[in-house]
């Protein structure tokens, strides 16, 4: 096993990886940008090095600076977390060339799976069903003919893409030309690669993915599925394991396909095979993520397997200690992504200082968080600030537990997605398990208001606050004594702002 690990990331995922290292008795090294000096991961690690200014392109994406720190700090492995350099084959190669293990698959595998056209080809060759579409890079003049063959509606996707970027829906042939032009522009700008492919839209599909573990000897197992259909504009917001859409038979079938896909890629370490599952239980390979996923904790909670520790063990050259028959899914886990976005204002990013923080605890609750009281949420990085994950013996218990935990969770100073989750967990469609990837965008809205009782309380509270402001405007100086009774006793919140 390694002795010293550098975590090339920030926020909740950096803390998550550092925790695994600490539990394995490994020394830890963090890197930070100038705005992250006080961040949790910097304080948590044994050593921490500044790697540049706030913009990610000048710090967390600087391969040269991170490798330089790794050499100076004498680490023997680098864990990239997710995002930033996690799926960058040049980074993986730079680590290895510096004699440092990259906690992830070999650089060639990262590159091959990052090229969506190549990954579609490799996986299809193994007989795994792939979303119908094209398998070669297409020139502009070839697009329409290919599209007509596949049928509308379809997606134009960037071969270097992922996570919904550089992706366009096309409903009719006459939209093709302009959409292709715009998609090329986006792909070039976002990934520096204008290569596009076409993919048929699988209507009313669920997004179901399988967690893979593979060692360097070619042993591959899966840790079951994650249901990730609750998405807003292709961004996942809630994930659960298992999925209500799978029975044991389908699970076994999809699990086998996932293992075959990973083998086709010569995969090593932890990875994820994403599938679309239609209403008739047909499933199609979508893409492979060659990194630790944001939503990995739900799998950990139902299988009892620490995926980050497994990643470190595999990267250090150990063989899988687990066999497929020993992997068991127990109970139900759900994760809510807590983002610094205002669900009542079109999910606009919200920035500012966290003034107070009340975090949920208690039975079955796991919180992966990168924030603290006084933390400044800036515009520089991803709005994901924490993940609230719960476990229960069954889905109904897990849902009730999540509602309980959400009501305990108070992040003051910025707007967060917590109210969105609270509303979603009231939705009968969600509770009943009746949803697909279009559910949030098409059949859910964040309306103001709600129950009459809450409305009445809101009216009373606003009136009490108004009354208090009026009293303070009249009485100078404002009272500081706490000897007065009742609601008059609280000090003007105004004066404390």
């Amino acid at each position, binding site marked *: 096993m390694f002795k010293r690990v550098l975590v090339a990331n920030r926020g909740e995922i950096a803390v998550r990886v550092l925790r695994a290292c600490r539990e394995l008795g490994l020394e830890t090294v963090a890197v930070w940008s100038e705005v992250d000096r006080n961040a949790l991961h910097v304080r948590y690690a044994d050593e921490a090095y500044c790697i540049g200014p706030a913009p990610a392109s000048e710090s967390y994406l600087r391969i040269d600076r991170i490798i330089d720190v790794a050499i100076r700090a004498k680490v023997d492995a680098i864990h990239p977390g997710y995002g930033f350099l996690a799926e960058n084959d040049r980074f993986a190669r730079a680590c290895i060339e510096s004699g440092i293990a990259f906690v992830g698959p070999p650089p060639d595998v990262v590159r091959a799976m990052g090229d969506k056209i190549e990954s579609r080809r490799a996986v299809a060759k193994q007989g795994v069903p792939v979303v119908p579409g094209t398998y070669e890079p297409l020139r502009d003049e070839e697009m329409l003919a290919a599209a007509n063959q596949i049928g509308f509606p379809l997606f134009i996707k960037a071969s270097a893409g992922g996570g919904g970027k550089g992706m366009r829906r096309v409903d009719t042939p006459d939209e093709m030309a302009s959409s292709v032009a715009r998609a090329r522009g986006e792909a070039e700008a976002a990934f520096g690669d204008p290569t596009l492919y076409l993919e048929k839209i699988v209507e009313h599909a669920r997004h179901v993915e399988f967690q893979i573990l593979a060692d360097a000897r070619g042993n591959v197992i899966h840790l079951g599925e994650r249901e990730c259909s609750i998405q807003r504009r292709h961004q996942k917001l809630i994930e659960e394991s298992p999925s209500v859409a799978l029975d044991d038979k389908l699970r076994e079938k999809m699990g086998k396909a996932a293992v075959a896909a990973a083998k086709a890629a010569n995969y090593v370490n932890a990875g994820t095979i994403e599938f679309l599952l239609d209403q008739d239980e047909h499933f199609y390979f979508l893409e492979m993520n060659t990194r630790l996923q944001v939503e990995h904790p739900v799998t950990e909670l139902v299988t009892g397997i620490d995926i980050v520790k497994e990643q470190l063990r595999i990267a250090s050259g150990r063989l899988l200690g687990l066999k497929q028959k020993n992997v068991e899914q127990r109970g139900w886990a759900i994760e809510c992504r807590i983002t610094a976005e205002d669900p009542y204002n079109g999910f606009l*990013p919200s920035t500012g200082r966290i*003034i107070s923080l009340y975090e949920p605890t208690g039975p079955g609750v796991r919180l992966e968080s990168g924030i603290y009281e006084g933390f400044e949420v800036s515009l520089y990085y*991803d*709005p994901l600030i924490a993940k609230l994950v719960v476990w229960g013996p069954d889905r109904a218990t897990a849902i009730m537990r999540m509602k309980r935990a959400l009501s305990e969770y108070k992040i*003051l100073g910025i707007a967060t997605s917590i109210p969105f989750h609270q509303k979603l967990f009231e939705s009968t469609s969600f509770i009943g398990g009746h949803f697909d990837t279009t559910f949030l965008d098409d059949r859910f809205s964040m309306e103001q208001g709600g129950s009459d009782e809450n409305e009445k309380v809101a009216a009373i509270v606003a009136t009490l606050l108004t*009354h208090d402001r009026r009293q303070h405007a009249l009485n100078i100086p404002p009272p500081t004594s706490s000897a007065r*009774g009742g609601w008059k006793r609280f000090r003007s*919140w105004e004066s*404390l702002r």
Partner: protein
Amino acid sequence: MKYTALINDRSYTIEIGTNNTVIVNGEAHTVDFRSIDGVTLFSLLMDNTSWEVLVERTGDEYRLLIDGELHVVDVQDERTRKLAKAESKTAVPAGEIAVKAPMPGLVRTVTVNVGDSVAAKQGVVILEAMKMQNELRTPRAGVVKEIRVKEGEAVNQGQVLVVIK
């Protein structure tokens, strides 16, 4: 003191009495109201029922979160109520309205031109912040009078981007 709290189309007449009572539409309640963090979080015991409320205020408008529900309340007392009534008689229909940047960011695209007619809630500017592109919409219909930013321009929070008349 008597107040009127307006939520959507509903109004509540609320009188603040003595001995920690409030009278809501004629019904008396005992209240014990405390600030927890001095800023945003409040605890209300109303007839011994416990409520936690997150509050944000802009001007006379309160935005309250209870169980994830957003309730927007406008509170008027007798004086401001009379004032508002008088104003509504003489006020001209609202004139220009500004679409402002809700946060600092980078203007990606301006999707309208000067002179365009826009519908309520139509997107006018795409602002990039935190890796995300955010569509900013006009709150009501009108005609684009002025565009004050260029694509690629960095803007501050509250900066006027587009003026609708």
